């Protein structure tokens, strides 16, 4: 199985479910130039991100090159300890990745 680009951690905190995720992605803006060749490094960034809990969307995001490399996202939502959380991302080259974890699962 290929290694996931997503690290996902969830826990119950203060009556809400806290979700933290660290995603491995270059988030290349498309504006940077290769110092040696002088050519622009092609844009390669996550365009869509969605987190669902038991299939229901909790966060949907439209990202662009202004989000930094290896983005980190952290948020809380009103859910329950038995939830199953899925994070999915899709980028401008058509690649995507997804990871599902139960609350508190390592």
């Amino acid at each position, binding site marked *: 199985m290929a*290694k996931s680009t997503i690290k996902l*951690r969830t826990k119950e905190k203060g009556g809400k479910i806290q979700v*933290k995720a*660290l995603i491995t992605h270059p988030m290349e803006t498309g504006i940077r130039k290769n110092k040696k060749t002088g050519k622009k490094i092609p844009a390669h960034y996550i365009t869509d991100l969605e987190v669902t809990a038991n299939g229901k969307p909790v966060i949907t995001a439209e990202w662009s090159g202004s989000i930094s490399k*290896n983005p980190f996202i*952290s948020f809380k939502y009103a859910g329950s300890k038995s939830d199953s959380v899925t994070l999915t991302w899709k980028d401008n080259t058509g690649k995507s990745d997804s990871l599902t974890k139960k609350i508190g699962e390592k």
Partner: protein
Amino acid sequence: MKKLITTVALFAIALTPIVTAQAGPAEDQKALKGYFTKSLAGKDLNDFGNGVYALDADARSQWEEIEEFPPYEIALDTGSELWDKKFKNGKSFESCFGDITKVRAKYPYHDEAKDTIITLEGEINKCLTDNGEKPFKWKKGKIAAVSAHIAYAGRGQKVNVQPKTKKALAWYNKGKNFFYAKRGQLNLSCADCHVYNAGRKARGDLLSPLYGHPTHFPVFRSKWGSLGTLHRRYGGCNKNVRAKPFKAQSDEYKALEYFQAAMANGLELNGPGARK
């Protein structure tokens, strides 16, 4: 008789070894800790391995939250893979270093025979070249990842750098003089910020104290958006005072690392770290 006594007395004085004016590392560290006990009164010196987060409660709470899911985790995975990956000749980093939990605490040390300072990054690249592999670049990327993996495995062990021989002390003093010497267009020494103004602010940033400085390296700096080695940071610091930086793993930076490590003697190693 009087002339004989005088002659003997003068002869005895001439034979008495001259005590050097420069104090040794242990005395220097004691003086440093004494200084911070006064200038940063109320702060826990044993916590100084955490730098500015030992000084500012608000910054600390933010840093502790970051540490729950630290940005260097991706590099730790990369480092772990590189550590396990076999070289073309079948050997691996473990063949050079042995038990990973015991590696970090060995460095830096003075090699008496070669009369040089051996650093962790230096040994990582030596392992590669000794086994026919291409060495990594010195300041970031793979070398930092492997260093982080080693640092993480060695967390909790105490810094034990004790320059004893004349040659080792020469390297220690070289590093000490570098630290206290003024440099750059801004004419600042490392000490100006990290001893005399530790705990104060330079623009928006709190200045960290020398005591405990190198224990958390390699470091993920938000400014870099990546992991970097100690010598990478040295270069940046020199540029900050508008001084031309020295090369990573140059004698100057190796001596500086040796001095800083001696000043952190007894503190716990806590790499890799996350900083602004």
